[in-house]
């Protein structure tokens, strides 16, 4: 029996590896997801035959609650709510890890009924794994809940600063490590294990709270990585390779996404994790005196429709504003009417546009925009020069030319979409408010820039109707 279980775990591990591999290409992605799901099914089925598993009612109750919740979440969450959902899922993974680690710890305790009277036995390696599992799982759980809260608007999306932020976090972290070493040496200290758990949970809150809304793509992918590592640690606790392998794959994928997101902002991971653009507040105060003030020209839907009537190429640049306004379907309609006129329409996607990796791609896919019309920054940035009109919808910092030349700007050095190189740039925004970095966007004052004010969905719908009426 045991050997059959082990072989099944091996097959599951291989299916996870193949699944992740196939998830990397649009043609095979669905197959990859299915492979991984079959792997999971096999792993769960094998575990049910483990000789440790003797009662099934609690497993069935837990599985029912989890399955129904997961099912409802998967089908009821609108695509605009995807960042929150992914955030929440990360958290449940971490939560499961800390719970399993604590459960395994209690199994080793002499007071635990089954072990009563037996000599205490917590091997050092398992002790270390349990502590790390509690730490990473705990941080992932509460950190993801805060990330979810920020994305859902329950917790402020702003950069939160509190006194002695870094000192306090460093002390708490070192405290957990020190207490962990103590528990490994004296495993009977239940209270210390509980304190470690609570501090880990607090640490998750404190680490994610300072991270601002626009840095969420980094935070979400980092937490994704943590949820995998937590799973690996649980694997060390149980001495089970399938958990170690699956967790490591997820950990690696999360780290790679994190690095892509950091590169998209030209910032180090440390800089993001420590919270916000280093001096956003003070720098913007000084740079606003040097930033170009002058007249912004605005355009209404009728004039814009006429302008678009005579062009041959358009690039649409979506940002978080499109997600907030749920304008993806209106944007698709705009694409359709423009294409009917024989205009070449493409989309330029900045790597950190939105609130999670690939956020814009998912929204536009929902609106049935074919994915081969979506271009990554490096693939389209040289084409703005010979493009007639660029339409920026709810994006700000990622199109701010100050990032290229203004060394005093907090976003200096961040790779941006070169929308200002196009003949005309239309910027759809609700107001002249500054973007996330809290700085003015000099693009709005450029001679080739025209502001098209209004809520993204309303503005696009109006524009589509004007074009149809021409």
């Amino acid at each position, binding site marked *: 029996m045991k050997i059959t279980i082990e072989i099944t775990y091996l097959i599951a591990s291989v299916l*996870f*590896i193949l699944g*992740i591999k196939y998830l*990397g290409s*649009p043609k095979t*992605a*669905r197959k990859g*997801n299915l492979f*991984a*799901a079959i792997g999971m099914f096999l*792993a769960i089925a094998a*575990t*049910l035959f483990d000789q440790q598993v*003797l*009662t*099934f009612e609690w*497993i069935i109750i*837990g599985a029912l*609650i*989890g*399955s129904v919740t*997961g*099912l409802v979440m*998967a*089908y009821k969450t609108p*695509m605009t709510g995807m960042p929150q959902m*992914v955030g929440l899922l990360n958290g*449940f*993974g971490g939560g*499961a*890890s800390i*719970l*399993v680690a*604590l*459960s*395994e710890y*209690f199994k080793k305790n002499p007071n635990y009924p089954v072990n009563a009277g037996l000599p205490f036995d917590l091997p050092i390696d398992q002790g270390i794994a349990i502590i790390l599992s509690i730490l990473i799982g705990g941080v992932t759980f509460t950190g993801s809940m805060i990330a979810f809260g920020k994305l859902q608007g329950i917790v402020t999306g702003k950069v939160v600063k509190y006194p002695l932020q870094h000192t306090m976090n460093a002390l708490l972290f070192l405290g957990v490590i020190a207490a962990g070493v103590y528990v490994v040496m004296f495993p009977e200290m239940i209270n210390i294990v509980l304190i470690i758990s609570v501090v880990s949970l607090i640490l998750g809150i404190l680490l994610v709270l300072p991270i601002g809304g626009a840095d969420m793509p980094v935070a979400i992918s980092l937490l*994704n990585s943590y949820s995998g590592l*937590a799973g690996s640690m649980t694997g060390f606790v149980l*001495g*089970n390779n*399938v*958990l170690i392998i*699956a967790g*490591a*794959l*997820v950990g*690696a*994928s999360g780290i790679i996404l994190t690095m892509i997101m950091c590169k998209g902002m030209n910032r180090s991971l440390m800089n993001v994790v420590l919270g916000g653009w280093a001096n956003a507040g003070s720098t913007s105060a000084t740079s606003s005196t040097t930033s170009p003030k002058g007249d912004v020209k605005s355009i209404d839907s009728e004039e814009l429709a006429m302008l678009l009537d005579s062009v041959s190429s358009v690039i649409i640049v979506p940002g978080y504003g499109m997600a907030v306004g749920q304008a993806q379907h209106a944007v698709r309609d705009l694409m359709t009417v423009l294409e009917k006129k024989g205009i070449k329409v493409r989309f330029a*996607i900045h790597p950190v546009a939105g609130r*999670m*990796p*690939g956020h814009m791609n*998912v929204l536009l*896919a929902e609106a*049935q925009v074919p994915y*081969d*019309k*979506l271009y*990554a920054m490096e693939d389209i940035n040289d084409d703005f020069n010979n493009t007639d009109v660029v339409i920026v919808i709810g994006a700000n910092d990622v199109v701010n030319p100050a990032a290229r030349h203004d060394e005093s700007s907090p976003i200096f050095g961040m790779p941006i979409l070169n929308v200002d190189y196009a003949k005309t740039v239309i910027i759809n925004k609700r107001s002249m408010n500054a973007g996330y970095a809290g700085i003015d966007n000099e693009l709005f004052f450029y001679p080739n820039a025209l502001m098209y004010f209004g809520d993204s969905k309303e503005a696009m719908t109006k524009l589509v109707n004007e074009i149809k009426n021409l």
Partner: protein
Amino acid sequence: MEEYFFLMHVYVFALAIFVGFELITKVPPTLHTPLMSGSNAISGITIVGAILSAGLEQFTISTILGLIAVAFAMINVIGGFLVTDRMLKMFKKK
């Protein structure tokens, strides 16, 4: 041999990290979100540990923790795989 078990697990972990890096390095931006939600579902593998705790013969504190862990991990597994499939179904070439 017994004392090398832990080391063997560290081996597996190290190699799996490298496999992960090799597999994922070239993922197009279009698939970033599905990769995240799909890998998320895979991290629900913690369900194995949760089942081992919730299925113990005697009802103890470990059973309660295991029960909650089963629910959490199952949300991850079911929610993750289904939402990924729902997303991937939308991705179409023209």
